[in-house]
């Protein structure tokens, strides 16, 4: 992010949301809402004094609720720019009008409680979708795992925050309920993944590897601990992945092949009931901490943004690539590309690869002065055109307008209106051809004659 922010040709618009997208490839007009920050970033030096004095503490989104943040905050330590914003959902001054401590302590006076959202509209040549993923809300779906009522049943991202040195526990793995180091940790894979009944039918692809990583971290960081991984399959198709899985096994993680059926609490211990399907015995593990490796789902706003931009989605809400093998980073909408998990679950190496591909597709698009378009576009025979305008009314791409031409009728030159196709905008759908009563428009490559011949051939 820092590198992107410092690049001369990249303008980073943080804390902003897309409100509306108009236009087409090479000419997208994007309306952007820059959310009120309540801090003047052109003056703020990011000294952080305000954050230390703010009296309001709310759960930190970045720490997955395991830690707290203040109302004036930087979302995470490496945030760019390294300057705070005020969260208007929890700030006392904004909600009740009383407080304003940050404004008092700021040595440069950059707090502005009157700040408003700003709207800007800019033109872009291409759009790369990189809207990412959320974790499935397992607490709403899995009653057998306690509907989220056991504090020591956490998800993989929470575990990530815990094992991170700059996280809420400074890298210590602890039980959220009492802060003790767990001795027995159960890691459950495929929670929400591969479960069409309660979650999603697909495999979330990255979890096998991070489950192995989590098991390894438990063994590394918690003395005398044991990690149990409940799995159905171990899928390690990446380079050196299988080797890492074997290392985890060698370092002592116990892999049990079976899905956990129930997790319940009794006398302070979590009982995880599963079957080891390899020995056909039901097993129970008394765990101090349970980590659920939950399914990836498209991020909450994906549908809204996709509909605005006109990018297609598949049955699970992931953005649809133009072709699963041959055009994996493009969408059906010209000039809109895909990067990362918005297209489907994937791990970091795959995300980087796909994002690089999307970037180079944009470069290729911009490197030419003229754009190649599909030759199968509408063509008007002006001699036949009566200028009724039906075609213009039914064109979904606004590619047809009426223009005036000089034409010779009954030996006289007269001015009359005929349809005219903008070859850059026409997408070749052929709706105008069907609408044209005099039969003046035809679709090159899909002419009426050609299709009729096809019909004849198919009816043999």
């Amino acid at each position, binding site marked *: 992010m820092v590198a992107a922010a410092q690049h001369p040709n990249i303008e980073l618009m*943080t*804390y902003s949301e897309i409100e509306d997208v108009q236009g087409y490839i090479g000419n997208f007009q994007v309306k952007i809402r820059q*959310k009120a920050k309540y801090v003047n970033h052109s003056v703020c030096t990011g000294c952080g004094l305000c954050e230390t004095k703010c009296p309001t503490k*709310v*759960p*930190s*989104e*970045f720490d*997955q*609720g*395991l830690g*707290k943040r203040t109302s004036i905050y*930087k*979302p*995470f330590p490496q*945030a*760019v*720019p390294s300057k705070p*914003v005020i*969260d208007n*959902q*929890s700030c006392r001054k904004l909600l009740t009008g009383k407080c304003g401590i940050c404004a008092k302590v700021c040595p440069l006076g950059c707090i502005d409680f009157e700040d408003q959202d700003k709207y800007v509209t800019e033109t872009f040549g291409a759009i790369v979708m990189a809207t990412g993923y959320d974790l499935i*809300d397992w*607490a709403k779906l*899995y*009653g*057998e795992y*306690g*509907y*989220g*009522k*056991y*504090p020591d049943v956490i998800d993989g991202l*929470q575990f990530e925050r815990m094992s991170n040195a700059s996280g809420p526990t400074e890298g210590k793995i602890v039980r*959220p*309920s009492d802060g003790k180091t767990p001795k027995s940790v159960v890691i459950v894979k495929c929670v929400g993944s591969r479960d069409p009944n309660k979650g999603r039918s697909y495999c979330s692809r990255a979890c096998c590897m991070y489950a192995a990583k989590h098991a390894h971290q438990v063994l590394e960081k918690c003395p005398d601990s044991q990690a149990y991984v409940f799995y159905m399959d171990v899928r390690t198709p990446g380079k050196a992945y299988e080797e890492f899985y074997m290392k985890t096994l060698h370092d002592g993680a116990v892999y049990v092949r079976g899905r956990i059926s*129930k997790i*319940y*609490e*009794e*006398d302070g211990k979590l009982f995880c009931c599963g079957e080891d399907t390899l020995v056909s015995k039901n097993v129970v593990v008394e765990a101090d901490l349970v980590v659920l490796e939950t399914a990836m789902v498209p991020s909450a706003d994906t549908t809204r943004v996709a509909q605005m931009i006109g990018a297609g989605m598949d049955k699970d809400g992931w953005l649809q690539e133009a072709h699963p093998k041959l055009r994996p980073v493009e969408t059906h909408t010209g000039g809109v590309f895909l990067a990362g998990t918005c297209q489907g679950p994937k791990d970091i190496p795959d995300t980087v690869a796909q994002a690089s591909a999307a970037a180079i597709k944009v470069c290729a698009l911009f490197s030419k002065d003229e754009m190649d378009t599909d030759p199968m576009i509408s063509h008007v025979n002006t001699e036949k055109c009566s200028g009724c305008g039906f075609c213009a009314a039914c064109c979904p791409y606004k590619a047809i307008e009426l223009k005036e031409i000089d034409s010779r009728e009954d030996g006289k030159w007269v001015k009359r209106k005929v349809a005219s196709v903008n070859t850059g905008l026409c997408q070749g759908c052929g709706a105008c051809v069907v609408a044209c009563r005099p039969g003046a428009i035809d679709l090159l490559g899909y002419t009426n004659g050609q299709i009729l011949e096809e019909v004849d051939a198919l009816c043999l």
Partner: protein
Amino acid sequence: MKYAYYPGCSSAGSGVEFELSSRFVAKKIGMELIETPDWNCCGASAAHLTNHDLSIALPARNLALAEDMDLDVAVPCAACFGRMKTAVKYVRESEKNQKHIEDILEIPYKAKNDVYCLLDVMSRPEAMEAIKANIAKPLNGLKVASYYGCLLVRPAGVVQFDDTENPQSMDKLMELVGATPVEWAFKTECCGASHQVSVPKVGREIIYRLLKNAVSNGAEAIVTACPLCMLNLDMRMKEMSRRDPRLNIPVYFFTELLAMALGSGAKAIGINKHFFPAVEVAEKALIPKPVEEVSAKKPVKPIAKAKQENTKNGGETA
């Protein structure tokens, strides 16, 4: 609040308390339960373990009789309820199925009316309000583990009642009459009733696990909504307390506790008929406690709470 009522075979036998207390509660809150004339046994597991048609036709006969009254059916027993729901679903699935069953029954049955369990009809807003209005003596924080058992909530697609893993309707009723429902993990686990007789060893292990979890979560009593669960737990409690002395708590039908709170005496609704002595605990619960004992608060777990708030809050990241 008017239903065709299907008491089930246990109503005149081992589950007579359920019948007595349900009648008492219904009368108090103005719910009309009109007994289905000349009903027969639903066939229970024995029928559907043996023959599919039989498992539909036996309950369907009762439903056909209730259809003459043009009322929805209320069923106290979870097993009967499950069988009847299955029959309704089967008949509604296709005209072919309906005709097939009518051919067996030789009386018309269109599956027009719905079937509800007694817990369902008693935990609806209008019934809850009537109960609330008629509370004579609240239960003063008696800690109860609401035990739903398997057939009341499963299979979800058939019975269409409450949550399969953590149902709430009975807990809400108990809270309404002043008891404190405890959080526990075996609300909908099977009690193994069908095996207590034929494979006792398995049956006992199942109840043991269940009771242990209830007690270790602080339950002072278990509340059930199924005569089979009731008989099973109540009858085996003494045996269980020999295995683990902590397991000596009474078991009630939810209607028994409702009836007590609505002013019934324990004997009038048959609480004295339990295997495990239950009168004392119920009567004691009705005596008001000193104020400080009542407010038994659970300690707040800081991180767990934060986690829940987080999902609501959903703040922005730059």
